[in-house]
């Protein structure tokens, strides 16, 4: 394919994409030019497909057929971000945002709204877009979207990821065109350095420097790798990019190949992401067909191709040297560095490895320039960061905000606060390698350095919100169970250390903690941090250390008073019946699986604490709130 042909595709479908980006009035005019009266975008990301968005699409197409409506385009997109309200469907040019759509409601929407002269079905909209006076506001103005700035996710939820022409029209491959026609490899690297982009996988190493090292290494063969082994539980940013805009990653890897002098790339992706893998395969096939991968790309004489390699479920393979061992077909065990991969990486050759979100930032940096990119965010952390917001928060989903946005803005404004009237206790960032940010630090700006300063880390972008019902000792035990399970076993500090830490934490949650345990935890953690081989072991103690820093009282209460105030640690709880409130209805006694509750009808009952297994069924069933948990 030539550059002219690429431009022609872009021109052909530009209006079609633009309708989805502009506001109503302009959109309506534009829509007339496209030949489609309306466009219906349905989320086909993992979150929404799990809540049956495929059935919604099938029903939509069926309804349109029945009503003989032919001037409406149905587009299956990637993630819109507001996963809690899935399946989501947006109708353009109105920008009507329908939430929790079902095959039944989609019928109603087709009959009332999508027919000629139809009107928006207000009751079925995301209620955040309907004001108290009944007016409909664009979803981009709702608190969830307003504070966001979408750079890495620019095309997610906008284009059909399985159609390369939509991707091209939305701006993908524009950076590749610019690089191949008007930039030298050094220009590309200098642009990356000037942008200040830092690795979005967690460590925050400057991307430009990584590329410069690899370019400086002399070798006949070099490799470009993409880390899509998103193992951090509760993080799904990378998956959403792959599902929503896979071409942005392919394009960026090709640009990197040009910059460092590599002709082969590998994408290492989790096998647990079937939708992402499928979309990547389609994207690769189409990119080859359109001559955007393979030999002589865009007539420039530059060759580059990419292969997919599937992971098989090992958290440690997110570590760069382990990931490369795994691509080579071995046990994914890390090795000491140096030599760094930029010198000696995959198959012993100079290699650069960046994570999916980092790759997704390359196109805008090249197209709009490093100066534009570095004007966003803070001085040392430029650009935006995508977070997967989860846990005890109203708007569970994917958000992208400029670096330096405060945690309060994310939780209270974008996230919509804590549900069920509970209070915010802490935010966990960085997953099993990170730590907790307590309520007292809720005004901390989120950037690489501020997070490290308060004992957490950016990590890949998982952000789990915890409320008063979460026990901090239990949550650090949860992370230690994870790291103990995922430790590859190669180095002793991590293999033994994670097990011993977990033992100590288990002891505390079981009410067997002793006062010297906290000191033991701190000593062991310090050894692990200093002597483990890779980041997994070095950072495994972080969840424990940061909760000890901010929630030491809870540990002390567990140990000294044998109390778990959050009511999570079973061994520390006892259930009692409050005599005055008990009506003797016998419901609890009938529910109790171990027959620990005795008493006669209309007389207060009693729980035998020795027999009780603390399942909580009695408390859940009591209609008189007569059962208390201490």
């Amino acid at each position, binding site marked *: 394919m030539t550059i002219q042909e690429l431009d022609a595709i872009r021109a052909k479908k530009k209006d079609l994409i633009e309708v989805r980006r502009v506001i109503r009035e302009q959109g309506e005019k534009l829509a007339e030019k496209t030949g489609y009266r309306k466009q219906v975008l349905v989320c086909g990301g993992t979150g929404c497909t799990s809540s049956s968005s495929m059935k919604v699409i099938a029903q939509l197409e069926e309804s349109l057929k029945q009503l003989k409506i032919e001037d409406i385009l149905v587009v299956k997109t990637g993630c819109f971000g507001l996963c809690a309200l899935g399946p989501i469907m947006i109708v353009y040019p109105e920008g009507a945002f329908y939430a929790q759509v079902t095959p039944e409601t989609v019928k109603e929407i087709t009959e009332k709204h999508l027919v000629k002269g139809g009107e928006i079905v207000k009751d079925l909209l995301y209620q955040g877009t309907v004001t108290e006076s009944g007016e409909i506001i664009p979803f981009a103005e709702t608190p969830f979207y307003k504070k966001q700035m979408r750079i890495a996710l620019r095309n997610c939820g906008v284009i059909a990821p399985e159609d390369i022409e939509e991707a091209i029209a939305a701006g993908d491959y524009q950076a590749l065109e610019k690089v191949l026609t008007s930039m030298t490899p050094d220009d590309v690297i200098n642009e990356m350095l000037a942008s200040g982009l830092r690795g979005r996988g967690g460590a925050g190493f400057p991307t430009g420097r990584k590329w410069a090292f690899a370019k400086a290494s002399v070798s006949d063969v070099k490799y470009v790798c993409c880390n899509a082994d998103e193992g951090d539980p509760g993080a799904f940013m990378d998956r959403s990019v792959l599902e929503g805009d896979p071409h942005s990653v392919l394009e960026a890897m090709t640009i990197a190949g040009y910059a460092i002098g590599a002709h082969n790339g590998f994408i290492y992706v989790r096998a*647990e992401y079937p939708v992402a893998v499928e979309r990547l395969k389609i994207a690769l096939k189409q990119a080859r067909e359109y001559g955007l991968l393979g030999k002589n790309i865009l007539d420039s004489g530059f060759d580059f191709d990419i292969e997919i390699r599937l992971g098989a479920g090992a958290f440690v393979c997110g570590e760069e040297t382990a990931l490369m061992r795994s691509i080579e077909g071995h046990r994914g065990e890390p090795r000491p560095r140096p030599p760094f991969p930029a010198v000696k990486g995959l198959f012993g050759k100079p290699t650069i490895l960046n994570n999916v979100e980092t790759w997704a930032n390359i196109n805008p940096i090249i197209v709009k320039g490093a100066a534009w990119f570095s004007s966003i965010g803070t001085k040392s952390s430029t650009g935006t960061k995508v977070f997967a917001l989860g846990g005890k928060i109203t708007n569970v989903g994917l958000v992208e905000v400029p670096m330096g946005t405060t945690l309060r803005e994310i939780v209270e404004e974008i996230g919509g606060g804590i549900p069920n009237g509970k209070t915010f206790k802490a935010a966990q960032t960085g997953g099993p390698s990170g730590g907790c940010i307590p309520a007292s630090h809720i005004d901390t700006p989120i950037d690489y350095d501020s997070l490290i300063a308060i004992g957490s880390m950016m990590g890949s972008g998982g952000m789990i919100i915890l409320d008063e019902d979460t026990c901090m000792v239990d949550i650090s035990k949860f992370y230690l169970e994870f790291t103990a399970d995922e430790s590859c076993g190669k180095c002793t500090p991590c293999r033994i250390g994670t097990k011993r830490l977990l033992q100590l934490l288990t002891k505390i949650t079981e009410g067997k903690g002793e006062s010297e345990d906290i000191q033991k935890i701190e000593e062991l953690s310090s050894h692990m941090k200093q002597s483990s081989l890779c980041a997994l072991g070095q950072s495994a103690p972080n969840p424990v250390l940061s909760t000890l820093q901010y929630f030491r009282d809870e540990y002390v209460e567990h140990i000294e008073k044998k109390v778990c105030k959050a009511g999570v640690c079973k061994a520390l709880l006892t259930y009692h019946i409050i005599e005055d409130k008990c009506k003797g209805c016998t419901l609890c006694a009938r529910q109790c699986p171990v027959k620990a509750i005795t008493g006669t009808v209309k007389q207060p009952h009693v729980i035998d604490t020795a027999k009780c297994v603390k399942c909580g069924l009695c408390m859940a069933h009591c209609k008189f709130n007569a059962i208390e948990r201490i």
Partner: protein
Amino acid sequence: MKECKAFCGTAEQEQKLKAVIEESRSTPGCLMHILQEAQGIYGFLPIEVQKIIAEGLGISLSEVYGVVTFYSQFSLNPKGKHRISVCLGTACYVKGSDKLLEELEKQLNIKCGECTPDGLFSIDSCRCVGACGLAPVVMIDEDVYGKLTPEMVKGILDKYREEQA
């Protein structure tokens, strides 16, 4: 080495596997790919299958076994007809997925990682299927069940039992 259940692979399966080995053996780093395909063919990776792969690639059985046991996706034991996978990722955990796992274990009278004697169900835990908006989540085969409570577990299992009967 953990004892595997009696192996009864068919000649057809072996033929398929050998074709996969032949096709990929020249690609560097092909072992993982072959193991993934083999697990697709047999449902699990008993020692007999690992031997075929080791011989086909001309590498030692211990190397193959080392890789198989390193990655959690590879299984040495057969799985149930319906594979239940409880998400124990952080978002699901804080919303009580551990209680779902407990309930499943109680209902089926097996532990996580095991298969029921009739071969109908097996339970595993997994780390984040990415449907955090629906937490807590359980996957049965390809279907995702979200926003579950322990009380809902029995009804879901019964649905699969009825299908069987």
